């Protein structure tokens, strides 16, 4: 196979990992809304935790994006 083509295919496959991060971020926000609608008065204090969980989950998707960017521009 042409190495350039293999590089682009690899970058495309690496982006699949971001789907997992998408599922994770969706679960965090759905669970937060689930809890927040049951007890709205407690939800204000949990906003920082929500953003922290979102950021940590998103980091894993970012690593796969990083692999894709490295394949496209650095390898």
């Amino acid at each position, binding site marked *: 196979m042409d190495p350039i083509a293999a590089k682009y295919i690899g970058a495309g496959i690496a982006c699949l990992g971001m789907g997992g991060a998408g599922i994770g971020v969706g679960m965090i926000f759905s669970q937060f809304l689930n809890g927040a609608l049951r007890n709205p008065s407690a939800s204000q204090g949990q906003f*920082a935790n929500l*953003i922290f969980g979102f*950021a940590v989950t998103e980091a894993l998707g*970012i*690593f796969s994006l*990083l692999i894709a960017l490295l394949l496209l521009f650095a390898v």
Partner: protein
Amino acid sequence: MADPIHQFEIQKIFSLGHIGNQEIAFTNSSAYMLGAVGIIGLLMIGGSAGKRLVPDRMQSVAELSYEFVANTMRSSIGEEGMKFFPFVFSLFMFVLTANLIGIIPYTFTVTSHLIVTLALALMVFLTVLIYGIYKNGLGFFKLFVPHGIPIYILPLIMVIEVISFLSRPVSHSVRLFANMLAGHITLKVFAGFVTSLSALGALGIFGAVLPLAMTTALTALELLVAFLQAYVFTILTCIYLNDALHPGH
């Protein structure tokens, strides 16, 4: 169609000399960074000059941003972390202002360059590392040894903790960079659809309303992302600084 990557190009304004073979130049990136610092300085100095009991608009903005960061820090680090307040507040205001300037059409987004966000993230990382070792001595390394873990899986957990600690500056910087880069490329791609559709004639101009509406909606979304990413950057900084202050889990 216009090249959507063109907006990230660095242009030299004037040269400052050479270090080795590397030219040191004042670029459009440096100009926008200075502009961001200037805007923050004007806002803060102008906001605190009046010291009115009933604040005017500028003073309210300055007070609101101060209170916002101070409350975030108090809830995540606690009162003894407030000595880092100037650092965290400067980071938040710089990232937020740079992101917001970038939304204005025809401007340059400073935070869409990895080197800028990496420098900010490494600053946080080195502050945590140096201050943590200075304050706790070798006790700082308790960070990698969580309590209540059975002894036979402790070595594995320690390796994972060390790797996650070392990957912090990577995820911290690439998050901001990737969000800004992806958002601005999407905006420019949709804006490119407007021009290429309207070149097709009367029907094309009618059809170009759709991508134009999409561009407007995306700009609103980018405004939210600009604020959210500045907030995420700040809250992660607070959480990392908290590790330096209280390394035992």
